[in-house]
């Protein structure tokens, strides 16, 4: 009888541990790419978004810092030197021919030159930039509040998201590559600290940081803050744009709501 033979507990535990560990690791990688499981994991994002929207008032501001806190080595990330032909042509003459086009679900589509934007009332803020990778840098940004532009073009009632189309191709593929884009919901698009910055740390916005114009969304992570912005569009939903998830990184599995 088996009971009489005794039971090798130690050997059993060891084998169970190694076998279990291997199965769990392989199983987790399988789960990571299984559609049903990803859909379940992705549900946490709406819980996070709903919770944060509930506790985060529309006027709650991201912390602003002093000049002394500014990072001497603000790390540029993503595209830092776009080689797209259109962009190179614009940058060659100091972005004099660059125009920011704002359209979509708006009453009066408009466009602005860099000089036009500089002539508008501006906001300057020293804020902390939190990258999804985990690091933080502090920088000073000067630009036009996005809300000022949206007020001028007049959002149609059905407009729910603001989409930002960028000049840079971040990923080269055989099909030609994917241009960067991003989108915001209206609560963040109309927030006082959401600006289109043309200056960084008191100087002209450098190419590495998104010249001539980049978005600042201070209550979310860095990847929401589109650089090299060319065109802005108000839409009712973004499912028809590129991968349909609302942004370059969102199409690659990152959260659309990046307040976390």
């Amino acid at each position, binding site marked *: 009888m088996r009971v009489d033979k005794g039971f090798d507990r130690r050997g059993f535990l060891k084998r169970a541990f190694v076998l279990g560990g291997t199965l769990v690791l392989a199983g987790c990688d399988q789960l990571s790419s299984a559609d049903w499981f990803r859909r379940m994991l992705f549900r946490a994002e709406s819980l996070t978004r709903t919770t944060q929207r509930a506790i985060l008032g529309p006027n709650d501001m991201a912390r602003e810092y002093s000049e002394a806190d500014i990072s001497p080595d603000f790390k540029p990330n993503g595209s830092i030197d776009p080689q797209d032909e259109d962009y190179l042509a614009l940058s060659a003459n100091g972005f004099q021919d660059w125009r920011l086009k704002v359209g979509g679900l708006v009453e009066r589509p408009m466009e602005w030159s860099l000089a036009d934007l500089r002539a508008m009332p501006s906001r300057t803020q020293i804020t902390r930039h939190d990258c999804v990778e985990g690091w933080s840098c502090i920088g000073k940004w000067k630009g036009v509040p996005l809300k000022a532009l949206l007020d001028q073009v007049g959002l149609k009632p059905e407009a729910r998201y603001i989409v930002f189309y960028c000049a840079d191709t971040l990923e080269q593929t055989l099909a030609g590559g994917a241009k960067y884009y991003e989108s915001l919901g209206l609560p963040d698009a109309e927030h006082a600290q959401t600006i289109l910055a043309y200056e960084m740390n008191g100087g002209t916005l450098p190419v590495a940081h998104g010249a001539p114009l980049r978005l600042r969304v201070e209550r979310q992570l860095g990847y929401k803050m589109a650089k090299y912005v060319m065109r802005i569009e108000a839409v009712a939903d973004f499912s028809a744009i590129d991968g349909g998830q609302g942004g370059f990184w969102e199409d*690659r599995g990152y959260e659309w709501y990046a307040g976390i």
Partner: protein
Amino acid sequence: MSAISEEGVPRRQLIYRHRLVVRVTHWINVLCITVLLMSGMQIFNAHPALYLGQRSHFDSPVLAMRQAPDTDDNPVGVTTILGHDFTTTGVLGVSRENGASVERGFPSWATLPSFQDLATGRRWHFFFAWLFVANGLVYLAWSLASGHLRELVPNRDQLRHIGASIWEHMRLKFPRGDEARHYNVLQKLAYFGIALVVLPLLVLAGLAMSPGIDAAFPWLVDILGGRQTARTIHFVCATLVVLFILVHLAMVLISGVFNNLRSMITGNYVIQPEEKSDAR
């Protein structure tokens, strides 16, 4: 009182040790903490360095894992802790992935997913973080209401004899008889410390890394010393959790693995009689 058999010899006694809420929340915790640790290491690997303050001082990390410069032919992993370099090739900084030595913070077998994928790591982490917090709140609310929390607080007598208790544990002699009915002083300190100090601090430090939470509660990131300090605290607390688990598992194995497992599954635990030689 120990039960005495007819022959006058003390016998084994079955007691109901862990109540249902403790058992259920324990196993949900096992799942959550395993996933959170492994997906946390995946997230850490996206930028395997820690700093103090609000921002990253890239040239003075308190901890960094990387490949040593100019070692592409024969990659060397270096872990820097508070300015001191340690060679950690194979585990930290450089480890094998699909047969090749690559630069990565934690090794492939420790991260979730095993391959570099920050987006998916975050999805795992935040889903199980919600489950972990909900589970923890159920446990804390029940513990407060039922008086279980008081069982985790050592009394003065226990604290006075903590030296003896440590000595007994070091000799791997564990309480028997009536003493085994309650948590001993080291168990109380360990469970109280992990459940009411380390894990809540770990959650708060995690929340302080969220730019949305920081805008809603700016004081949170300030009391933790800045966002990068919060990230470091999150990491240190997670390390303490790993240490707790190692000791916890060792104690479970040494003090009767099947008896312990049964008590955390069915609630029932066998108490060994006090030994004559152990009389005090």
